[in-house]
């Protein structure tokens, strides 16, 4: 979603940044973009050059006496650098490791200076709000979350792509309305929202109006804006294992709860998908997950257990099937399949 904004409308992001920087009298700005998005890097660089040519960036912008320089930095492949203090460390030329908060970056950020960090989509909304006014922006959305939101709809759904809807649209409207439902009329199982540290929302919440608060209540987050639809051929335990293994690998290793806890969660889930899990393992996942959430230094560790916790909450039956009945209802965990079924899967 952010990639598409930077590629397709880089000036909206740049303009939002310039306005915001002017508001707080910042003289230096950075756009931190993943190196895996080469076209986004190219387009935002071009937009910066164009803004310089027209006197919208650089010294004495439009004769106002205000100067601003914006630099593009490419991420070097570390998920943790999405966390604001780790991102600042990376901009300063350090390993991308989080720093304790407070002090928050708004007080002490880049090289000790007050620093405001916002997402691409947030900045892209700023010119719109300035031009049309806050009231117009607030016309769409819910009580707590105003405006529209862009979701990246993907996974086992007929229409995939970027979807912009008013805050408060329901999951059903997005998945079955815009998304056109599941391929081959398969059964909807869950939608994973918010990226690797998000949560899985089950069919029971299909009519949930999506905003920041409602997602939090069901154990998911807005996060990256990713909406990955899963049908009944997806094993929820395997998905939880997949997410935690990603976070374990991406942990920067600085604090023990995240460095060790994510690995323990991963190993426990590995055992369960291999048919060696016990009922105690489920309790262990929950208590350990809670410790990691509460004691990790930064957002990566604090949210890493979300996929495990949300699936344990909404899909406990499927965990029990793996642990007690030693079966994988979705037919994904190969160690739990009858031999004939394993052969069938090869096709």
């Amino acid at each position: 979603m952010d990639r598409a904004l930077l590629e397709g409308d880089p000036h909206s992001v740049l303009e939002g940044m310039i306005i915001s920087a002017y508001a707080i009298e910042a003289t230096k700005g950075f756009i931190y973009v993943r190196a895996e998005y080469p076209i986004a890097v190219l387009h935002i660089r071009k937009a910066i050059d164009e803004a310089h040519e027209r006197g919208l960036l650089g010294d004495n912008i439009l004769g106002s006496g205000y100067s601003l320089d914006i630099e593009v930095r490419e991420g070097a492949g570390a998920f943790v650098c999405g966390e604001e203090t780790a991102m600042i460390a990376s901009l300063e030329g350090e390993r991308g490791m989080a720093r304790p908060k407070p002090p928050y970056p708004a007080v002490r950020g880049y090289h000790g200076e007050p620093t405001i960090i916002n997402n691409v989509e947030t900045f892209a909304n700023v010119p719109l709000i300035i031009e049309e006014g806050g009231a117009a922006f607030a016309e769409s959305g819910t009580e707590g979350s105003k405006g529209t939101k862009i979701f990246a709809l993907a996974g086992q759904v007929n229409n995939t792509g970027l979807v912009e809807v008013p805050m408060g649209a329901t999951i059903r409207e997005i998945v079955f309305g815009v998304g056109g439902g599941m391929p081959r009329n398969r059964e909807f199982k869950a939608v994973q929202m918010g990226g690797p540290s998000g949560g899985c929302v089950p069919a029971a919440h299909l009519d949930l109006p999506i905003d920041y608060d409602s997602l939090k209540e069901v154990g998911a987050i807005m996060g990256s804006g990713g909406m990955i639809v899963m049908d009944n051929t997806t094993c929820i335990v395997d998905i939880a294992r997949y997410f935690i293994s990603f976070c374990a690998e991406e942990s920067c290793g600085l604090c023990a709860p995240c460095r060790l806890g994510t690995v323990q969660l991963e190993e426990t889930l590995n055992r369960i998908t291999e048919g060696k899990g016990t009922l105690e393992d489920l309790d262990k996942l929950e208590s350990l997950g809670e410790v990691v959430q509460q004691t990790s230094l930064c957002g990566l560790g604090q949210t890493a257990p979300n996929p495990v916790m949300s699936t344990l909450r909404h899909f406990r039956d499927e965990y029990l099937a793996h642990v007690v009945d030693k079966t994988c209802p979705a037919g994904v965990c190969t160690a739990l399949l009858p031999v004939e079924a394993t052969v069938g899967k090869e096709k």
Partner: protein
Amino acid sequence: MTAVDLGPAHAVLEDMAPVDHGHAIPLLQNIQESYGYLPREVLLELSSETGIPASHLFGLATFYAQFYLEEHGRHTVRVCRGTACHVRGRKIIQEAIDEELGIGPGETTEDRRFSLETVACVGTCFLAPVVMIDHDYFGNFDPKKVGEIIGGYE
């Protein structure tokens, strides 16, 4: 070990001057762009030219997944292991590519034609499953076409 030409490194330093601690990561990125990896001799030279401790440069090179300390293939094949790709059959694609190239993720073919990697997400989830070769995207990747696609890169 054959001596590494330090010329390109000096060109990068000159182009970026003045290089301070804060530019250590873009410096390594530009060095890797010109050498294809981060040769040890070059890192030591960068350290003595910029005053950034070599231990710090190696620290960065080993922290960030983007950097390689070993010589890399001419082309990089990146298999996306993001969630959307995961639920749409990334595993089958990974197996097909591993088999076609005869290597696993993190490895380079003997002829140095390809290096194989996995990547967290390439941001094109609606094309899942996705494979990137250098800067080219291949969406809705068909494992049957692996040979054909790989064959387009020399």
